[in-house]
Structures are given as structure tokens and as C-alpha cells.
């Protein structure tokens, strides 16, 4: 298994001298397991990935692509129409995302990426695309040597966390999510006021189930890529935004005995120097619990061999 980061910014893309080393593109990760090509999220980072795949010296020779969408917030889908393999009639794409009773995944994507917001609907591109809706807490195989497990994340309108498992490595992709203690996010909007909220029994159970599900994705994983948009003091001000801190991620990764935690979904205002500082500070903390830690940056490539 080889994992490569193409976009690690949260909320919206950013450009400029402050964002050169970690990069300004929004969520997109490439996972390669032998001949199986998996793409996690379709933020603006999927555009350079598509170009790399279509270049004559592409590192991978397959036209079969599995795209897993965590949720359809703009920063996770806005690059999709610019994914160059869509313009190749030989591409066969399967898009995975949450099954929702009110609207098919295909419609949600088509509605956002067609007219009047985008000139050419991405579903009318030459590539063959089918949609596979998934539920939380299931496991299925997409190739003889590649299994995918899903879990529910604690984010407005709900999001899906994924684990990709193969004999050559395992990856947990957990973004976007809040921690599993204070607020339960569902499809309805959580009040934005600051009043103290008490959770009812059912909400507490749902959160516990989510917490366990996310631990299951992460257990013994080679790599955990986790939403760490906030620093602790920012989280205290915006618990209702549906994002976590490195402290939350380290706690879970250590408990799950994962090997290497990747801080992901950087706040759009976070400069290269600030991320350097965060990485340095938390790397020391993670070392205490025997966990490797890195901040995600565009171009970061992970294999078991390269990261021992």
C-alpha cells in the first residue's frame, strides 16, 4: 500500500507564500494497493492527481478508480469536475458515499457540480461512472486484497470515516469529525448558541457507538489521517463546527495502537510556520505514547518501507 497526499487543507483552498510547503489544496488522498487505485475525497487536490494519472509517465497503469467521499461539503467535492480521467472514455469510476433516504448520492453530486454552478455536469463526462451508496459500520471488499470498513463521524449532516485494509498496509481516514463527548451532530443543525447542553441517553449512546466505530477503523492501523483543524483554544470557541484537535487525535490513535498519526484538514489560515510549530509540539507528545506523528503536506508519500 502506498498513500499520497494531494490536498490537506480544510474548508476552502488557499494560495500564497504562507502556504507553499504544506499546500493550499483541499482534501484528496491517493491510495494504491497493487493495481487497485483508491481516491479519498475530491477536493481541489484531485485536479493535480488526475493530471498525474493521465500523464504519459504516470506511476499507475489502471483505468479503474474507486473514489470514496466522506461527505459532500464543498471542500471535499469541488475538485471533482476537474478530475482529468473523467474525460477519458476508458475510465471506469465507482463513487462511494453515504446512503441517505432523502436524496441519492448521484443527485447530490450532480446537483452541486452541474449547471448553474459548473458548465458541464460531471455525470455527463465520457468516463463510465457508477455510484455505490454505503452505510455506517460495514465492511466490504473492492478487490481480493483490499477491504473497506466504514464508520460514522461526528460532523454536521454526518460524514463517513473509512479504513482501507490490505496485507501491505492499513489506513484510517477520519475527517471531518468533532470529538465524541460534548455535541452530537446529525442531519439537523446543532444550535449555534453557547448555552450548556446536556445529552440525553440516546445521544450519549450514539456518540459511544461512533467513538467505538472510529477506534475500530484505527485499530493497529499503519496510518491514521485525522481531522485536526483546531488547536485546543480554537476548539473551545467553536465546538459546534464539527472538527477536532491534535489532542483528540493523539488520544484515540494511542488507544487504538495505531503506528503513525497524520494531522490533516489544516485550518485555511494556518501558515507553514504555524504548522511546523504544531507538528514539532505534538510530535514530542505523541512520542511519549509510542506514536509517530506528521503534519500532512501535499506530496507526502507513505509506505511501510519508507516510514519505519
Amino acid at each position, binding site marked *: 500500500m502506498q498513500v499520497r497526499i494531494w490536498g490537506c487543507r480544510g*474548508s*476552502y*483552498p*488557499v*494560495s*500564497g*507564500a504562507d*502556504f*507553499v510547503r504544506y*499546500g*493550499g*489544496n483541499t482534501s484528496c488522498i491517493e491510495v494504491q494497493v497493487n493495481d487497485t487505485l483508491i481516491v479519498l475525497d475530491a477536493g*481541489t487536490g484531485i*485536479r*493535480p492527481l488526475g*493530471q498525474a494519472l493521465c500523464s504519459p509517465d504516470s506511476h499507475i497503469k489502471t483505468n479503474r478508480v474507486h473514489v470514496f467521499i466522506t461527505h*459532500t*461539503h*464543498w471542500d471535499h*467535492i*469541488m*475538485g471533482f469536475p*476537474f478530475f482529468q480521467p473523467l474525460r477519458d472514455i476508458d475510465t471506469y469510476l465507482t463513487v462511494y458515499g453515504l446512503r441517505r433516504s432523502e*436524496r441519492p448520492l448521484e443527485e*447530490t453530486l450532480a*446537483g*452541486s457540480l452541474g449547471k*448553474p*454552478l*459548473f*458548465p458541464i455536469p460531471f455525470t455527463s463526462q465520457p468516463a463510465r461512472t457508477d455510484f455505490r451508496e454505503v452505510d455506517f459500520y460495514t465492511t466490504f471488499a473492492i478487490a481480493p486484497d483490499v477491504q473497506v470498513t466504514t464508520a460514522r463521524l461526528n460532523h*454536521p*449532516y454526518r460524514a463517513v470515516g473509512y479504513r482501507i485494509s490490505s496485507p501491505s498496509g492499513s489506513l484510517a481516514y477520519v475527517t471531518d469529525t468533532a470529538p465524541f463527548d460534548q455535541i452530537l451532530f446529525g*442531519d439537523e*443543525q446543532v444550535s*449555534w448558541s453557547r448555552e450548556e447542553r446536556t445529552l440525553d441517553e440516546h445521544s450519549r449512546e450514539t456518540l459511544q457507538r461512533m467513538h467505538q466505530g472510529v477506534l475500530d477503523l484505527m485499530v493497529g492501523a499503519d496510518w491514521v489521517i485525522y481531522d485536526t483543524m483546531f488547536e485546543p483554544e480554537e476548539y473551545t470557541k467553536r465546538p459546534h*463546527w*464539527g472538527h477536532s484537535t491534535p489532542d483528540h487525535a493523539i488520544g484515540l490513535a494511542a488507544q487504538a495502537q495505531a503506528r503513525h498519526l497524520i494531522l490533516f484538514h489544516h485550518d*485555511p*489560515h494556518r501558515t507553514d510556520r504555524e504548522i511546523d510549530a504544531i507538528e514539532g509540539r505534538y510530535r514530542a507528545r505523541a512520542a511519549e505514547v509510542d506514536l509517530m506523528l506528521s503534519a500532512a503536506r*501535499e506530496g507526502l508519500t507513505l509506505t511501510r518501507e519508507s516510514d519505519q
Partner: protein
Amino acid sequence: MRVRFWGVRGSIASPGPKTLRYGGNTSCVAVESDAGDLIVLDAGSGFCPLGDALMKGSFGKGQGNMTLLLSHTHLDHIIGFPFAPPVHIRGNHFTIYGPAASREGLEELHEGLVAPAYSPVYTLDNIGSTLDFRRIPDEPFVAGGVQITAQRFPHGVGVFSWGFKLTERGRSLIYVPDVEYQYRHGVVSNEPTESIHSLDEAVAFVRDADLLIHDAYFTLHDYVPGWGHCRTQHAVTLAEAGNIKHLILFHHAPDRSDEEIDALIADHRDDLYHRGAPLRLDAAYEGMTIQL
């Protein structure tokens, strides 16, 4: 008027080392009038850093006022809006002119932009500021001390993008971010009387302006017909025919690298120089500021 560029890309943001000097954010240009009014042309991803900057002034106190002119509603011209902090501050006021059959249509489109499937904002009702949506009027209108004239331009099959002319105290700028000129009348338009078609027809709209900010998505070599964008040479031809003083090439293709834009500008300047043409020509970059 004082013009500042916050996003100069077309289609999609393309951050990275290759686009560092000109910038990777999508369309957003802020115009501060001599009278102190703020008019913003398009709300692509460049609208986010503009919003951050505005928070230091009256928008941070909930006393800001902006007129936002939307050329059209492709994502690279509207995606920044829901993310910009001033939009979420009670007391700020946004008058948003955009293309739609009705003001309700424009509001509905923005409602879709922040719907729960796509945004944690859920609904425009959660946006603290006042949003006053308006259909772009057919007649010239006034915002602050600035006279605004709008004109439809062809932008690919069956699609229009508006161009705007802003005039204050005898100075004028034209903004035409997305256009593919047609060579035969009526080829793409359903409403032939309402849109400009050819470059010749555009000359009357831009004539004698001090500044022309124009679509520069394609060059001679990479032009794809039907994609809704013209070649840079069209911008130069239009600027010269319209007696423009200063042409700014804008809405660069996402993959146009800093070096390629440098080379493109050098080629056009060479050509102008050899022909003895008086036109001043630059490429827009993030942070570029022009006083008119």
C-alpha cells in the same frame, strides 16, 4: 477608484509553487470608490482573504457595506462567499447583483450554495449579515458614487457572463472575466438581441475606458473552442480597437505557471512595441493595486 486583485484564476483554485507569484485564488476584484464605497467584482476563493482583510475595518464591527457584482454563478465566481467572515457578522450589509431571472432566483441559488449537503451553514437564515439580492438591471444603475453599466457576454454554449463598466469622476474600468467571442450572429445565443456576440460588438461597450480587466484563459496554442473562453490575443485586439489605456489579463487558466504568464506578457508587449501601439498591458496578480 482604487482597484485591488484578490483572486485572478479561472475555473478552480490552483495553489502551489508554480502559481505563487500571480496567485492561485479564483476571481475576486475589490474596487474602492473615491467616495469610499466598496464594490466587489465576483466572489471566487479570493473573496476569503478579502474578507479577512475587511475584518480589520468597519466589517469587523458589523458596520460594513458592500456592493457585490456577480458576473455569473459558476463556482469560481461565487464559492468564496459563504466562507468569508464579514458575511457572518450581524450589521454588515451586502447588496448582491447577479444574473438570474429574478431576485428570488438569485437568493435560491445562494440558498443552495449553503444547503446542509454542501455547507455547515445549512441556510442563509444563519448568515448574520443582511443580504439584499437583486437582479442585474438592464438600465445603468448607481452604487455609492459609481455608475454601473452591465452587458451580457457569450460564455460558451447557451451561457452568458455579465461584463461590468464602472465609472466615477470621468474614470472608468471594464470587467469582462469570462467570454468566448462568436464569429457568426445567433450561433449560441437564445436571446440574440440581449447579448454581445462578436468582438466587434464588444468595442462599443469598452470604448475609451481607462482600464480593461479581461478574460485571458487561453493562448493561441491551447485554445479549445466551445469552452467559453477567448484567447489573450482577443483581449489585446479589443483593447486596441476600443482605445483602452491599460489592459489587465485576468482569469488565468489554473495550470498557467508564473513563468508561462511572464512569457505570455513579454510576447504581447514585444508585439505592441514593434507595432508602436500605445496600449499598456499587464497580467493580474494577487495583491496588484491600481489607482484610477
